[in-house]
Protein backbone atom coordinates (compact mmCIF):
# COMPACT_ATOMS: atom_id res chain seq x y z
CA UNK A 1 0.00 0.00 0.00
CA UNK A 2 1.32 3.44 -0.75
CA UNK A 3 0.76 6.50 1.34
CA UNK A 4 -2.21 8.72 0.66
CA UNK A 5 -1.19 11.99 2.24
CA UNK A 6 1.83 14.04 3.19
CA UNK A 7 1.50 16.80 5.75
CA UNK A 8 3.78 19.83 6.02
CA UNK A 9 3.66 21.70 9.29
CA UNK A 10 5.83 24.12 11.23
CA UNK A 11 5.99 27.61 12.67
CA UNK A 12 5.35 30.60 10.41
CA UNK A 13 7.71 31.67 7.67
CA UNK A 14 9.92 28.57 7.62
CA UNK A 15 8.95 27.71 4.06
CA UNK A 16 6.13 25.16 4.50
CA UNK A 17 4.25 26.25 1.41
CA UNK A 18 7.31 26.33 -0.82
CA UNK A 19 8.56 22.96 0.42
CA UNK A 20 5.12 21.39 0.08
CA UNK A 21 4.91 22.69 -3.48
CA UNK A 22 8.40 21.39 -4.25
CA UNK A 23 7.47 17.95 -2.94
CA UNK A 24 4.23 17.99 -4.94
CA UNK A 25 6.16 18.86 -8.07
CA UNK A 26 8.74 16.16 -7.45
CA UNK A 27 6.12 13.45 -6.92
CA UNK A 28 4.02 14.64 -9.85
CA UNK A 29 7.10 14.40 -12.06
CA UNK A 30 7.41 10.76 -10.97
CA UNK A 31 4.00 10.23 -12.58
CA UNK A 32 1.81 10.45 -9.51
CA UNK A 33 -1.52 12.27 -9.54
CA UNK A 34 -1.11 14.94 -6.89
CA UNK A 35 -3.43 17.37 -5.19
CA UNK A 36 -1.77 20.16 -3.23
CA UNK A 37 -4.03 21.78 -0.64
CA UNK A 38 -3.26 24.82 1.46
CA UNK A 39 -5.33 25.56 4.53
CA UNK A 40 -3.34 28.54 5.69
CA UNK A 41 -5.65 31.54 5.31
CA UNK A 42 -2.60 33.59 4.28
CA UNK A 43 -2.61 31.53 1.05
CA UNK A 44 0.98 32.01 -0.04
CA UNK A 45 0.37 29.11 -2.40
CA UNK A 46 -1.34 31.39 -4.89
CA UNK A 47 1.87 33.39 -5.07
CA UNK A 48 4.12 30.36 -5.32
CA UNK A 49 2.05 28.93 -8.18
CA UNK A 50 0.77 32.21 -9.63
CA UNK A 51 -2.83 31.09 -9.13
CA UNK A 52 -5.76 33.46 -9.60
CA UNK A 53 -6.87 35.15 -6.40
CA UNK A 54 -10.31 33.76 -5.73
CA UNK A 55 -12.22 32.20 -2.91
CA UNK A 56 -14.01 29.72 -5.11
CA UNK A 57 -12.57 26.63 -3.47
CA UNK A 58 -12.07 25.20 -6.97
CA UNK A 59 -9.20 22.94 -7.95
CA UNK A 60 -6.68 24.53 -10.33
CA UNK A 61 -4.47 22.56 -12.70
CA UNK A 62 -0.83 23.63 -12.40
CA UNK A 63 0.64 23.98 -15.89
CA UNK A 64 3.79 21.87 -16.35
CA UNK A 65 5.09 24.74 -18.45
CA UNK A 66 5.70 26.69 -15.26
CA UNK A 67 8.26 24.15 -14.06
CA UNK A 68 9.67 23.05 -17.37
CA UNK A 69 13.17 23.43 -16.03
CA UNK A 70 12.41 20.59 -13.63
CA UNK A 71 9.97 18.29 -15.43
CA UNK A 72 11.24 18.77 -18.97
CA UNK A 73 8.70 17.62 -21.55
CA UNK A 74 6.89 15.25 -19.20
CA UNK A 75 3.19 15.73 -18.59
CA UNK A 76 2.39 16.17 -14.93
CA UNK A 77 -0.86 15.78 -13.08
CA UNK A 78 -0.60 18.40 -10.37
CA UNK A 79 -3.66 20.20 -9.03
CA UNK A 80 -3.81 22.87 -6.37
CA UNK A 81 -6.62 23.91 -4.07
CA UNK A 82 -6.97 27.00 -1.91
CA UNK A 83 -9.41 26.11 0.85
CA UNK A 84 -12.68 27.98 0.98
CA UNK A 85 -14.90 27.19 3.97
CA UNK A 86 -17.91 28.53 2.12
CA UNK A 87 -17.61 26.17 -0.83
CA UNK A 88 -16.91 23.20 1.45
CA UNK A 89 -20.13 23.96 3.30
CA UNK A 90 -22.02 24.25 0.01
CA UNK A 91 -20.70 20.94 -1.19
CA UNK A 92 -21.85 19.25 2.00
CA UNK A 93 -25.24 20.88 1.64
CA UNK A 94 -25.55 19.41 -1.84
CA UNK A 95 -24.44 15.97 -0.65
CA UNK A 96 -26.97 15.85 2.15
CA UNK A 97 -29.72 17.82 0.41
CA UNK A 98 -29.57 20.47 3.09
CA UNK A 99 -28.59 23.52 1.05
CA UNK A 100 -31.72 25.33 2.16
CA UNK A 101 -31.14 24.57 5.81
CA UNK A 102 -27.59 25.84 5.57
CA UNK A 103 -28.78 29.07 3.99
CA UNK A 104 -28.57 30.75 7.36
CA UNK A 105 -27.00 34.11 8.25
CA UNK A 106 -24.92 32.67 11.10
CA UNK A 107 -23.47 29.90 8.96
CA UNK A 108 -22.74 32.37 6.18
CA UNK A 109 -20.86 34.68 8.50
CA UNK A 110 -18.84 31.90 10.07
CA UNK A 111 -17.77 30.54 6.70
CA UNK A 112 -16.39 33.87 5.49
CA UNK A 113 -12.72 33.60 4.50
CA UNK A 114 -11.58 34.93 7.89
CA UNK A 115 -14.53 33.63 9.88
CA UNK A 116 -12.26 31.33 11.87
CA UNK A 117 -13.68 28.04 10.57
CA UNK A 118 -10.80 27.23 8.22
CA UNK A 119 -9.18 24.48 10.25
CA UNK A 120 -12.43 22.64 10.90
CA UNK A 121 -13.65 22.84 7.32
CA UNK A 122 -10.23 21.76 6.08
CA UNK A 123 -10.38 18.31 7.69
CA UNK A 124 -13.68 17.73 5.94
CA UNK A 125 -12.33 18.91 2.61
CA UNK A 126 -9.20 16.78 2.85
CA UNK A 127 -11.21 13.68 3.71
CA UNK A 128 -13.49 14.41 0.76
CA UNK A 129 -10.58 14.35 -1.68
CA UNK A 130 -9.03 11.28 -0.05
CA UNK A 131 -12.30 9.46 -0.48
CA UNK A 132 -12.82 10.65 -4.06
CA UNK A 133 -9.89 8.52 -5.22
CA UNK A 134 -9.04 11.08 -7.90
CA UNK A 135 -5.51 11.45 -6.61
CA UNK A 136 -2.67 9.13 -5.71
CA UNK A 137 -1.51 11.45 -3.02
CA UNK A 138 -2.55 14.65 -1.29
CA UNK A 139 0.05 17.13 -0.10
CA UNK A 140 -1.21 19.31 2.69
CA UNK A 141 0.22 22.70 3.60
CA UNK A 142 -1.03 23.54 7.09
CA UNK A 143 -1.44 26.76 9.07
CA UNK A 144 1.44 27.87 11.30
CA UNK A 145 2.14 26.90 14.90
CA UNK A 146 -0.72 26.16 17.19
CA UNK A 147 -3.23 26.49 14.35
CA UNK A 148 -1.85 23.23 13.03
CA UNK A 149 -2.81 21.58 16.30
CA UNK A 150 -6.23 23.27 15.98
CA UNK A 151 -6.50 21.54 12.65
CA UNK A 152 -5.65 18.18 14.21
CA UNK A 153 -8.16 18.68 17.02
CA UNK A 154 -10.89 19.59 14.54
CA UNK A 155 -12.51 16.23 14.15
CA UNK A 156 -12.68 15.87 17.91
CA UNK A 157 -14.41 19.24 18.04
CA UNK A 158 -16.80 18.19 15.32
CA UNK A 159 -17.59 15.00 17.16
CA UNK A 160 -18.37 16.75 20.42
CA UNK A 161 -20.37 19.36 18.54
CA UNK A 162 -22.72 16.66 17.33
CA UNK A 163 -22.73 15.13 20.74
CA UNK A 164 -26.04 14.01 22.20
CA UNK A 165 -26.45 17.24 24.17
CA UNK A 166 -27.42 18.83 20.94
CA UNK A 167 -30.31 16.51 20.45
CA UNK A 168 -31.77 17.88 23.62
CA UNK A 169 -31.97 21.31 22.10
CA UNK A 170 -34.19 20.05 19.37
CA UNK A 171 -36.34 18.33 21.87
CA UNK A 172 -36.68 21.63 23.64
CA UNK A 173 -37.52 23.68 20.63
CA UNK A 174 -39.84 21.01 19.31
CA UNK A 175 -38.41 21.17 15.81
CA UNK A 176 -38.15 17.92 14.01
CA UNK A 177 -34.67 17.04 12.88
CA UNK A 178 -35.32 13.71 11.30
CA UNK A 179 -37.70 10.81 11.15
CA UNK A 180 -36.41 9.03 14.22
CA UNK A 181 -36.32 11.98 16.58
CA UNK A 182 -39.47 12.12 18.71
CA UNK A 183 -40.11 15.51 20.14
CA UNK A 184 -42.30 16.15 23.10
CA UNK A 185 -43.23 18.84 25.50
CA UNK A 186 -42.76 16.58 28.43
CA UNK A 187 -39.25 15.60 27.54
CA UNK A 188 -38.43 19.22 27.00
CA UNK A 189 -39.33 20.11 30.55
CA UNK A 190 -37.26 17.36 32.09
CA UNK A 191 -34.29 17.76 29.77
CA UNK A 192 -31.11 18.80 31.45
CA UNK A 193 -31.11 22.54 31.58
CA UNK A 194 -30.97 23.27 27.87
CA UNK A 195 -34.08 25.40 28.18
CA UNK A 196 -32.46 27.43 30.90
CA UNK A 197 -29.29 27.71 28.87
CA UNK A 198 -31.09 29.07 25.84
CA UNK A 199 -33.06 31.53 27.90
CA UNK A 200 -29.82 32.89 29.32
CA UNK A 201 -28.39 33.06 25.82
CA UNK A 202 -31.47 35.01 24.74
CA UNK A 203 -30.92 37.51 27.52
CA UNK A 204 -27.48 38.35 26.23
CA UNK A 205 -28.00 38.08 22.50
CA UNK A 206 -31.63 38.96 21.92
CA UNK A 207 -34.35 36.45 21.09
CA UNK A 208 -34.05 36.80 17.31
CA UNK A 209 -30.54 35.51 17.45
CA UNK A 210 -31.58 32.43 19.41
CA UNK A 211 -34.05 31.53 16.67
CA UNK A 212 -31.51 31.95 13.89
CA UNK A 213 -29.00 30.10 16.00
CA UNK A 214 -31.28 27.12 16.50
CA UNK A 215 -31.97 27.05 12.76
CA UNK A 216 -28.23 27.07 12.14
CA UNK A 217 -27.72 24.17 14.51
CA UNK A 218 -30.51 22.23 12.84
CA UNK A 219 -28.99 22.88 9.43
CA UNK A 220 -25.63 21.67 10.62
CA UNK A 221 -27.15 18.70 12.36
CA UNK A 222 -28.93 17.56 9.22
CA UNK A 223 -25.59 17.77 7.43
CA UNK A 224 -23.80 15.90 10.15
CA UNK A 225 -22.99 12.79 8.11
CA UNK A 226 -20.73 14.86 5.90
CA UNK A 227 -19.13 16.45 8.93
CA UNK A 228 -18.50 13.15 10.63
CA UNK A 229 -16.60 11.88 7.59
CA UNK A 230 -13.74 13.92 9.00
CA UNK A 231 -13.42 11.42 11.83
CA UNK A 232 -12.08 8.87 9.35
CA UNK A 233 -9.27 11.21 8.46
CA UNK A 234 -8.38 11.55 12.12
CA UNK A 235 -8.25 7.79 12.65
CA UNK A 236 -6.02 7.32 9.63
CA UNK A 237 -3.44 9.81 10.84
CA UNK A 238 -2.41 7.32 13.49
CA UNK A 239 -1.39 4.85 10.82
CA UNK A 240 2.20 5.03 9.65
CA UNK A 241 1.45 3.48 6.27
CA UNK A 242 -1.16 6.14 5.57
CA UNK A 243 0.87 9.33 5.80
CA UNK A 244 4.22 11.05 5.82
CA UNK A 245 4.61 14.16 7.87
CA UNK A 246 7.29 16.78 7.65
CA UNK A 247 7.90 19.23 10.42
CA UNK A 248 9.68 22.19 8.88
CA UNK A 249 12.14 24.52 10.62
CA UNK A 250 14.42 27.19 9.28
CA UNK A 251 17.96 28.10 10.30
CA UNK A 252 16.93 31.72 9.93
CA UNK A 253 14.78 31.29 13.01
CA UNK A 254 15.73 30.10 16.46
CA UNK A 255 12.56 28.11 16.95
CA UNK A 256 13.60 24.57 17.77
CA UNK A 257 11.69 24.66 21.07
CA UNK A 258 8.54 25.63 19.22
CA UNK A 259 9.12 22.81 16.74
CA UNK A 260 9.55 20.29 19.53
CA UNK A 261 6.42 21.58 21.21
CA UNK A 262 4.51 21.15 17.96
CA UNK A 263 5.80 17.63 17.60
CA UNK A 264 4.63 16.76 21.10
CA UNK A 265 1.22 18.26 20.38
CA UNK A 266 0.93 16.48 17.06
CA UNK A 267 1.93 13.10 18.50
CA UNK A 268 -1.38 12.91 20.34
CA UNK A 269 -3.05 12.69 16.96
CA UNK A 270 -0.47 11.27 14.61
CA UNK A 271 1.98 8.43 14.28
CA UNK A 272 5.55 9.21 15.35
CA UNK A 273 7.32 8.34 12.10
CA UNK A 274 8.04 11.92 11.09
CA UNK A 275 10.68 13.89 9.23
CA UNK A 276 12.27 17.11 10.31
CA UNK A 277 13.05 19.46 7.46
CA UNK A 278 15.77 21.99 8.20
CA UNK A 279 15.27 24.69 5.63
CA UNK A 280 17.47 27.53 4.35
CA UNK A 281 20.77 25.89 5.33
CA UNK A 282 23.75 28.07 4.48
CA UNK A 283 26.30 25.26 4.98
CA UNK A 284 28.94 25.61 2.24
CA UNK A 285 28.26 29.34 1.83
CA UNK A 286 29.49 29.86 5.35
CA UNK A 287 32.52 27.62 5.23
CA UNK A 288 33.68 29.28 1.99
CA UNK A 289 33.50 32.74 3.51
CA UNK A 290 36.71 34.39 4.69
CA UNK A 291 35.56 37.42 6.67
CA UNK A 292 37.45 40.59 5.85
CA UNK A 293 36.70 42.45 9.09
CA UNK A 294 35.96 41.87 12.77
CA UNK A 295 32.29 42.74 12.19
CA UNK A 296 32.06 40.22 9.39
CA UNK A 297 33.61 37.62 11.65
CA UNK A 298 30.93 38.33 14.28
CA UNK A 299 28.23 37.98 11.66
CA UNK A 300 29.67 34.78 10.29
CA UNK A 301 30.06 33.28 13.76
CA UNK A 302 26.47 34.07 14.71
CA UNK A 303 25.14 32.63 11.46
CA UNK A 304 27.21 29.50 11.87
CA UNK A 305 26.22 29.13 15.53
CA UNK A 306 22.51 29.37 14.87
CA UNK A 307 22.74 26.82 12.06
CA UNK A 308 24.77 24.38 14.13
CA UNK A 309 22.57 24.78 17.14
CA UNK A 310 19.45 24.01 15.16
CA UNK A 311 20.98 21.01 13.43
CA UNK A 312 22.28 19.65 16.70
CA UNK A 313 18.91 19.95 18.41
CA UNK A 314 17.26 18.48 15.32
CA UNK A 315 19.47 15.41 15.38
CA UNK A 316 18.65 14.82 19.02
CA UNK A 317 14.87 14.73 18.67
CA UNK A 318 14.36 13.42 15.14
CA UNK A 319 15.62 10.25 13.50
CA UNK A 320 15.06 11.52 10.03
CA UNK A 321 16.44 14.97 9.32
CA UNK A 322 16.39 16.43 5.81
CA UNK A 323 18.48 19.52 5.16
CA UNK A 324 17.38 21.92 2.46
CA UNK A 325 19.70 24.58 1.03
CA UNK A 326 18.94 28.28 1.09
CA UNK A 327 17.76 29.44 -2.33
CA UNK A 328 19.08 32.83 -3.34
CA UNK A 329 16.71 33.81 -6.10
CA UNK A 330 13.83 36.22 -6.12
CA UNK A 331 11.31 34.13 -8.03
CA UNK A 332 9.17 31.63 -6.10
CA UNK A 333 9.44 29.36 -9.16
CA UNK A 334 13.18 29.05 -8.73
CA UNK A 335 12.74 28.20 -5.05
CA UNK A 336 10.29 25.44 -5.85
CA UNK A 337 12.53 23.93 -8.51
CA UNK A 338 15.67 23.92 -6.39
CA UNK A 339 13.87 22.41 -3.43
CA UNK A 340 12.23 19.80 -5.66
CA UNK A 341 15.76 18.77 -6.68
CA UNK A 342 16.68 18.39 -3.02
CA UNK A 343 13.60 16.22 -2.54
CA UNK A 344 14.65 14.15 -5.53
CA UNK A 345 17.96 13.41 -3.81
CA UNK A 346 16.31 12.40 -0.53
CA UNK A 347 13.31 10.74 -2.15
CA UNK A 348 11.36 9.89 1.03
CA UNK A 349 9.32 6.75 0.27
CA UNK A 350 5.57 7.05 -0.19
Amino acid at each position, binding site marked *: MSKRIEIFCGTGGVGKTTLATARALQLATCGKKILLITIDPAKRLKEVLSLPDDDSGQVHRVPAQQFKEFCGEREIHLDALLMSPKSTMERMGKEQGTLEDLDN*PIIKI*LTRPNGGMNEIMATIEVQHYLKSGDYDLIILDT*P*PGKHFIDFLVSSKKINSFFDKTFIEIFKYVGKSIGKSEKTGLFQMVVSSGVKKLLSYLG*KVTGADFVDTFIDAIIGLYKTKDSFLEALRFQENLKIKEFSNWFLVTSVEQQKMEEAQEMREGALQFMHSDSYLGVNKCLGPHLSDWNPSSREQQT*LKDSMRDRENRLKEAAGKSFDKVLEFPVVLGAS*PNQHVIELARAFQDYDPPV
Partner: protein
Amino acid sequence: MKDPISNSSSQHSTPSNKLIRKLYVVTGKGGVGKTSLALSMALHLKNSGRKVFYNSFDHTPDHQLLKSLDIPYLDLDIVDSAKTYMGKKLKSQTIASWIMKTPFFHSLFNMIPGLGMMILLGQIIELLEDDPELTIVLDSPASGHALTMFESSHNFRDMFKTGLIVDDIDRMHRFIYGEGILKTVIACLPTQMALTEGTELLESLKELKIEDIQLVSNDNYHLTPGVSDSSEKDLPNFLIKKVELEKEVSAKLNLQDNLLLAHIPTIHKKEVIEALSPSMEGLL
Protein backbone atom coordinates in the same frame (compact mmCIF):
# COMPACT_ATOMS: atom_id res chain seq x y z
CA MET B 1 29.20 48.02 20.49
CA LYS B 2 27.17 50.40 22.66
CA ASP B 3 25.41 49.00 25.66
CA PRO B 4 21.81 48.77 24.46
CA ILE B 5 20.27 49.22 27.90
CA SER B 6 21.97 52.44 28.94
CA ASN B 7 21.48 53.62 25.39
CA SER B 8 17.73 53.23 25.46
CA SER B 9 17.15 54.73 28.88
CA SER B 10 19.28 57.79 28.31
CA GLN B 11 18.09 58.71 24.84
CA HIS B 12 14.44 57.91 25.05
CA SER B 13 13.16 59.14 28.36
CA THR B 14 10.84 61.76 26.90
CA PRO B 15 7.83 60.06 25.39
CA SER B 16 5.68 63.11 26.07
CA ASN B 17 6.37 64.75 22.72
CA LYS B 18 4.97 61.70 21.03
CA LEU B 19 1.46 60.34 21.14
CA ILE B 20 1.76 56.98 22.80
CA ARG B 21 -1.13 54.77 21.73
CA LYS B 22 -3.05 52.64 24.17
CA LEU B 23 -2.77 49.49 22.14
CA TYR B 24 -0.08 48.35 19.75
CA VAL B 25 -0.86 45.29 17.67
CA VAL B 26 2.12 43.66 15.99
CA THR B 27 1.33 41.36 13.10
CA GLY B 28 2.78 40.21 9.75
CA LYS B 29 3.77 37.03 7.98
CA GLY B 30 5.02 34.12 10.07
CA GLY B 31 8.68 34.27 11.01
CA VAL B 32 9.19 37.98 10.38
CA GLY B 33 10.04 38.61 14.03
CA LYS B 34 6.67 39.71 15.43
CA THR B 35 7.57 38.55 18.92
CA SER B 36 10.99 40.21 18.90
CA LEU B 37 9.46 43.47 17.71
CA ALA B 38 6.55 43.35 20.16
CA LEU B 39 8.94 42.69 23.03
CA SER B 40 11.30 45.42 21.85
CA MET B 41 8.40 47.87 21.76
CA ALA B 42 7.28 46.85 25.23
CA LEU B 43 10.84 47.19 26.50
CA HIS B 44 11.24 50.58 24.90
CA LEU B 45 7.97 51.82 26.39
CA LYS B 46 8.91 50.50 29.79
CA ASN B 47 12.32 52.15 29.61
CA SER B 48 10.64 55.44 28.75
CA GLY B 49 8.72 55.22 31.99
CA ARG B 50 5.46 53.97 30.55
CA LYS B 51 3.23 51.40 32.27
CA VAL B 52 3.13 48.56 29.79
CA PHE B 53 1.90 45.00 29.45
CA TYR B 54 2.89 42.48 26.83
CA ASN B 55 0.37 39.91 25.64
CA SER B 56 0.61 37.21 23.02
CA PHE B 57 -2.61 36.08 21.46
CA ASP B 58 -1.90 32.66 20.14
CA HIS B 59 1.21 31.24 21.63
CA THR B 60 2.58 30.63 25.09
CA PRO B 61 5.19 33.26 25.77
CA ASP B 62 8.77 32.52 26.70
CA HIS B 63 8.37 33.36 30.40
CA GLN B 64 12.06 33.10 31.07
CA LEU B 65 12.82 35.65 28.39
CA LEU B 66 10.09 37.97 29.68
CA LYS B 67 11.51 37.69 33.16
CA SER B 68 15.06 38.40 32.06
CA LEU B 69 13.84 41.50 30.21
CA ASP B 70 11.59 42.40 33.13
CA ILE B 71 8.55 42.90 30.88
CA PRO B 72 5.20 42.32 32.61
CA TYR B 73 2.99 39.76 30.88
CA LEU B 74 -0.75 40.02 30.78
CA ASP B 75 -2.06 36.53 31.35
CA LEU B 76 -5.51 36.08 29.85
CA ASP B 77 -7.39 32.84 29.55
CA ILE B 78 -10.17 32.56 26.99
CA VAL B 79 -12.48 30.43 29.12
CA ASP B 80 -11.97 32.62 32.20
CA SER B 81 -12.50 35.77 30.16
CA ALA B 82 -15.70 34.38 28.69
CA LYS B 83 -16.92 33.34 32.12
CA THR B 84 -16.24 36.78 33.55
CA TYR B 85 -18.01 38.40 30.63
CA MET B 86 -21.08 36.19 30.80
CA GLY B 87 -21.16 36.66 34.58
CA LYS B 88 -21.31 40.43 34.18
CA LYS B 89 -24.08 40.24 31.60
CA LEU B 90 -26.18 37.79 33.55
CA LYS B 91 -25.31 39.37 36.87
CA SER B 92 -24.26 36.02 38.27
CA GLN B 93 -20.86 34.36 38.14
CA THR B 94 -22.40 31.09 39.27
CA ILE B 95 -24.71 30.89 36.28
CA ALA B 96 -21.87 31.92 33.98
CA SER B 97 -19.64 29.14 35.34
CA TRP B 98 -22.43 26.65 34.89
CA ILE B 99 -23.04 27.76 31.30
CA MET B 100 -19.38 27.51 30.38
CA LYS B 101 -19.26 24.02 31.83
CA THR B 102 -22.13 22.63 29.79
CA PRO B 103 -20.83 20.44 26.98
CA PHE B 104 -23.13 22.31 24.64
CA PHE B 105 -21.54 25.66 25.25
CA HIS B 106 -18.08 24.25 25.49
CA SER B 107 -18.26 22.60 22.10
CA LEU B 108 -19.89 25.65 20.57
CA PHE B 109 -17.03 27.75 21.86
CA ASN B 110 -14.55 25.31 20.33
CA MET B 111 -16.23 25.38 16.95
CA ILE B 112 -16.10 29.18 16.71
CA PRO B 113 -12.58 30.35 17.54
CA GLY B 114 -13.43 33.94 16.54
CA LEU B 115 -15.73 34.15 19.55
CA GLY B 116 -12.87 33.51 21.96
CA MET B 117 -10.66 36.00 20.17
CA MET B 118 -13.33 38.67 20.39
CA ILE B 119 -13.83 38.08 24.09
CA LEU B 120 -10.08 38.40 24.71
CA LEU B 121 -9.90 41.58 22.71
CA GLY B 122 -12.89 42.85 24.68
CA GLN B 123 -11.11 42.17 27.92
CA ILE B 124 -7.96 43.93 26.75
CA ILE B 125 -10.04 46.97 25.82
CA GLU B 126 -11.73 46.96 29.19
CA LEU B 127 -8.36 46.97 30.95
CA LEU B 128 -7.24 49.89 28.80
CA GLU B 129 -10.43 51.85 29.46
CA ASP B 130 -10.06 51.35 33.19
CA ASP B 131 -6.45 52.49 33.35
CA PRO B 132 -5.57 55.58 31.35
CA GLU B 133 -1.88 55.12 32.18
CA LEU B 134 -1.67 51.68 30.62
CA THR B 135 -0.34 50.64 27.22
CA ILE B 136 -0.64 47.08 25.94
CA VAL B 137 1.55 45.59 23.24
CA LEU B 138 -0.24 42.71 21.58
CA ASP B 139 1.89 40.11 19.84
CA SER B 140 -0.80 39.11 17.39
CA PRO B 141 -1.19 36.00 15.24
CA ALA B 142 0.21 35.99 11.68
CA SER B 143 -1.72 37.71 8.89
CA GLY B 144 -4.65 35.38 8.19
CA HIS B 145 -5.42 34.70 11.81
CA ALA B 146 -4.89 38.36 12.70
CA LEU B 147 -7.64 39.20 10.23
CA THR B 148 -9.89 36.68 11.96
CA MET B 149 -9.18 38.56 15.18
CA PHE B 150 -9.95 41.98 13.72
CA GLU B 151 -12.93 40.76 11.72
CA SER B 152 -14.55 38.76 14.48
CA SER B 153 -16.18 41.72 16.21
CA HIS B 154 -17.69 42.81 12.87
CA ASN B 155 -18.78 39.26 12.12
CA PHE B 156 -20.47 38.83 15.46
CA ARG B 157 -22.07 42.24 15.16
CA ASP B 158 -23.63 41.10 11.88
CA MET B 159 -24.69 37.92 13.55
CA PHE B 160 -26.30 39.19 16.73
CA LYS B 161 -27.80 42.36 15.19
CA THR B 162 -29.19 43.67 18.49
CA GLY B 163 -28.90 42.99 22.20
CA LEU B 164 -26.39 43.36 24.98
CA ILE B 165 -23.50 41.83 23.07
CA VAL B 166 -23.98 44.20 20.15
CA ASP B 167 -23.96 47.13 22.56
CA ASP B 168 -20.66 45.88 23.89
CA ILE B 169 -19.23 45.34 20.43
CA ASP B 170 -20.22 48.89 19.52
CA ARG B 171 -18.50 50.12 22.64
CA MET B 172 -15.41 48.11 21.68
CA HIS B 173 -15.45 49.63 18.22
CA ARG B 174 -15.91 53.16 19.51
CA PHE B 175 -12.88 52.68 21.70
CA ILE B 176 -10.63 50.95 19.23
CA TYR B 177 -11.52 53.23 16.33
CA GLY B 178 -11.10 56.29 18.53
CA GLU B 179 -8.27 58.66 17.74
CA GLY B 180 -4.84 57.80 19.11
CA ILE B 181 -5.90 54.47 20.59
CA LEU B 182 -4.77 51.67 18.31
CA LYS B 183 -1.72 51.43 16.14
CA THR B 184 -1.13 48.34 14.06
CA VAL B 185 2.42 47.44 13.13
CA ILE B 186 2.88 45.14 10.16
CA ALA B 187 6.31 43.58 10.36
CA CYS B 188 7.83 42.33 7.19
CA LEU B 189 11.13 40.96 5.97
CA PRO B 190 12.98 42.28 2.96
CA THR B 191 11.77 39.32 0.88
CA GLN B 192 9.20 39.29 -1.89
CA MET B 193 6.83 36.89 -0.12
CA ALA B 194 6.79 38.83 3.14
CA LEU B 195 6.33 42.07 1.23
CA THR B 196 3.33 40.71 -0.71
CA GLU B 197 1.74 39.33 2.43
CA GLY B 198 2.36 42.56 4.33
CA THR B 199 0.82 44.67 1.56
CA GLU B 200 -2.22 42.38 1.28
CA LEU B 201 -2.71 42.55 5.01
CA LEU B 202 -2.48 46.34 4.91
CA GLU B 203 -5.25 46.46 2.30
CA SER B 204 -7.49 44.08 4.24
CA LEU B 205 -7.05 46.08 7.43
CA LYS B 206 -7.92 49.29 5.61
CA GLU B 207 -11.12 47.63 4.45
CA LEU B 208 -11.91 47.16 8.13
CA LYS B 209 -11.37 50.93 8.51
CA ILE B 210 -8.22 50.42 10.53
CA GLU B 211 -6.22 53.47 9.49
CA ASP B 212 -3.23 53.84 11.77
CA ILE B 213 -0.93 51.19 10.32
CA GLN B 214 2.84 51.17 10.05
CA LEU B 215 4.89 48.80 7.95
CA VAL B 216 8.36 48.01 9.23
CA SER B 217 11.07 46.00 7.56
CA ASN B 218 12.98 43.71 9.90
CA ASP B 219 16.20 41.73 9.69
CA ASN B 220 18.03 43.65 6.96
CA TYR B 221 21.50 42.22 6.46
CA HIS B 222 22.58 45.17 4.35
CA LEU B 223 22.34 47.36 7.45
CA THR B 224 24.38 45.06 9.69
CA PRO B 225 27.90 46.20 10.58
CA GLY B 226 30.34 44.23 8.50
CA VAL B 227 27.99 44.36 5.52
CA SER B 228 26.80 47.96 5.54
CA ASP B 229 30.36 49.26 5.68
CA SER B 230 31.98 46.75 3.31
CA SER B 231 32.40 47.11 -0.40
CA GLU B 232 30.97 44.35 -2.57
CA LYS B 233 34.35 42.79 -3.31
CA ASP B 234 34.82 42.08 0.41
CA LEU B 235 31.55 40.19 0.72
CA PRO B 236 30.90 36.52 0.05
CA ASN B 237 28.70 35.75 -2.95
CA PHE B 238 25.63 34.67 -1.03
CA LEU B 239 25.58 37.94 0.94
CA ILE B 240 25.96 40.00 -2.24
CA LYS B 241 22.92 38.18 -3.60
CA LYS B 242 20.99 38.63 -0.38
CA VAL B 243 21.79 42.33 -0.16
CA GLU B 244 20.73 42.78 -3.77
CA LEU B 245 17.35 41.19 -3.08
CA GLU B 246 16.90 43.17 0.11
CA LYS B 247 17.53 46.45 -1.67
CA GLU B 248 15.17 45.50 -4.46
CA VAL B 249 12.35 44.80 -2.00
CA SER B 250 13.18 47.85 0.12
CA ALA B 251 12.86 50.06 -2.94
CA LYS B 252 9.30 48.78 -3.39
CA LEU B 253 8.53 49.20 0.30
CA ASN B 254 9.66 52.81 0.19
CA LEU B 255 9.98 53.23 3.96
CA GLN B 256 11.79 55.88 5.95
CA ASP B 257 15.26 54.83 7.06
CA ASN B 258 14.24 54.48 10.70
CA LEU B 259 11.71 51.82 9.69
CA LEU B 260 14.37 49.58 8.22
CA LEU B 261 15.82 47.47 11.00
CA ALA B 262 19.20 45.77 10.83
CA HIS B 263 19.79 42.06 11.27
CA ILE B 264 21.27 41.65 14.77
CA PRO B 265 24.18 39.21 14.63
CA THR B 266 23.59 37.18 17.76
CA ILE B 267 21.83 33.94 18.60
CA HIS B 268 20.54 35.27 21.92
CA LYS B 269 16.98 36.55 21.83
CA LYS B 270 17.52 38.88 24.76
CA GLU B 271 20.37 40.63 22.97
CA VAL B 272 18.30 41.01 19.81
CA ILE B 273 15.44 42.62 21.70
CA GLU B 274 17.69 44.95 23.66
CA ALA B 275 19.51 46.00 20.53
CA LEU B 276 16.25 46.66 18.64
CA SER B 277 14.43 48.48 21.40
CA PRO B 278 15.96 51.98 20.84
CA SER B 279 14.89 51.81 17.18
CA MET B 280 11.29 51.29 18.27
CA GLU B 281 10.83 55.03 18.75
CA GLY B 282 10.03 55.30 15.05
CA LEU B 283 7.17 52.83 15.46
CA LEU B 284 5.41 54.42 18.41
